[in-house]
């Protein structure tokens, strides 16, 4: 067996043990570094490299060589500019610096809630997509041509990127499990994000509460379907659900609009054998008791909050990730950064069910001190044995 293969088996076992509720040999590390970070770190032009994705292997290789993780740190971007440009996207637009910006948009008008509730997918295809993607707002023939090009571009790029990262996963002996497989959203977040927009949805829950609740109900089966990975059920999979709006709404609105369909989503995926990985964005401490109610072994990646409280309330049932503040990697000394890793491991690692990760993705190289980042990863790799 090659060294890489043996290493891969060892790393895979770390994640299997955590997901199986066993104590692993060491705290696994699942740190993905963003495509933007990777390109900047390799000293390449951000805009050019996102168009020239065939050249990304060299960029990803450098990440694999310089940063210790147990899963492949190189992530392909869902925000590939190619299909967005072909579609005339208003929701994702490349800035002059090369970053894909996400302007506030809305594709559903308030007087279209009834049409959306009657058939969310028809409404998406007929009304919402042509509004957000300007090149689709044309005659049926031209629309078909644009859609065909964008569909092919999206899958071509995704598949070639996947093959590239798979090659590096095998070469460097990363665990093939532990990462993200498919993406879906909490139904309320889906309605809020690009259908009604952040500003509109906060008014809608007062003006049209029944329609908002019905829209969330109507779209739930679609969000469940979107969250099913293209493989048989596995306790080692991860359906990624980034959670957005809950910290920005009142408790009673959370209870009425957010929680019921979100819980149904996670419950039904779990019942089919597909565990969810939640990115618990911002601070969910006021909802911590709700999180406990989710199916056992739901993966929860926390941004902010109280790690001690989370360990105490959720740590025996769910799998905890996150909390390490990437801001410290910029402002702290190497010693302070390592002390923070030690502090979090002391709190979160006992009893297992813990995977080391930062509180969010690192988007730019100048948002952290690279030496601190490397020192923290090395510290966890060498000092977080059980």
């Amino acid at each position, binding site marked *: 067996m090659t060294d890489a293969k043996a290493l891969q088996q060892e790393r895979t076992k770390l994640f299997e043990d955590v997901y199986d509720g066993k104590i692993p040999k060491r705290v696994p590390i699942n740190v993905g570094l963003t495509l933007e970070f990777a390109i900047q770190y390799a000293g390449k032009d951000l805009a050019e490299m996102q168009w020239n994705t065939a050249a990304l292997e060299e960029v990803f290789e450098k990440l694999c060589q310089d940063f210790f993780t147990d899963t492949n740190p190189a992530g392909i971007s*869902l925000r590939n500019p190619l299909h967005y440009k072909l*579609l005339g996207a208003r929701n994702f637009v490349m800035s002059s610096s090369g970053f894909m910006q996400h302007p506030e948009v809305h*594709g559903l008008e308030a007087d279209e809630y009834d049409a959306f509730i*009657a*058939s*969310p*997918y*028809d409404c*998406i*295809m007929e009304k*919402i*997509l042509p509004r*957000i*993607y300007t090149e689709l707002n044309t005659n049926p023939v031209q629309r078909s041509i644009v859609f065909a090009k*964008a*569909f092919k571009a*999206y*899958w071509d790029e995704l598949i070639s990127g996947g093959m590239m990262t798979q090659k590096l996963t095998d070469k460097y002996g990363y665990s093939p499990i532990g990462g993200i497989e*498919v*993406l*879906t*959203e909490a139904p309320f977040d*889906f309605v809020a*994000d*690009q*259908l009604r927009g952040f500003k509109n949805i906060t008014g809608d829950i007062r003006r049209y509460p029944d329609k908002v609740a019905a829209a969330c109900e109507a779209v739930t*089966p*679609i969000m469940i*379907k*979107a969250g099913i990975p*293209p493989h048989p059920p596995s306790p080692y999979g991860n359906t990624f659900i980034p959670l957005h709006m809950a910290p920005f709404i009142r408790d009673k609105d959370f209870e009425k609009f957010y929680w019921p369909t979100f819980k149904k989503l996670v419950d039904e995926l779990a019942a089919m054998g597909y565990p969810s990985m939640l990115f618990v964005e911002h601070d969910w401490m006021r909802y911590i008791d709700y999180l406990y109610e989710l199916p056992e072994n739901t993966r929860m990646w926390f941004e902010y909050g109280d790690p001690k409280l989370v360990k105490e309330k959720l740590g025996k049932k769910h799998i905890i990730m996150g909390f390490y503040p990437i801001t410290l990697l910029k402002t702290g000394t190497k010693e302070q950064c390592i002390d923070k890793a030690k502090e979090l491991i002391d709190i979160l690692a006992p009893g297992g069910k813990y995977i080391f990760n930062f509180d969010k993705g690192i988007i730019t190289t100048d948002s952290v001190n690279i030496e601190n980042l490397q020192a923290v990863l090395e510290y966890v790799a060498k000092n977080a044995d059980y």
Partner: protein
Amino acid sequence: MNTQYYKTWEEYMAEHPEIDERLAPVMAPKMQGYEEMMFAFVMMLLM
């Protein structure tokens, strides 16, 4: 899903009785695979 823009294989078969039963099992994963890819693409456009 209550939509005219996504069909399961069974729904597709019901609309296409001309399909040879012998070929249906080999056609299904390919045909339905593209249906699923289109669904995944559409959803990604709004996430």
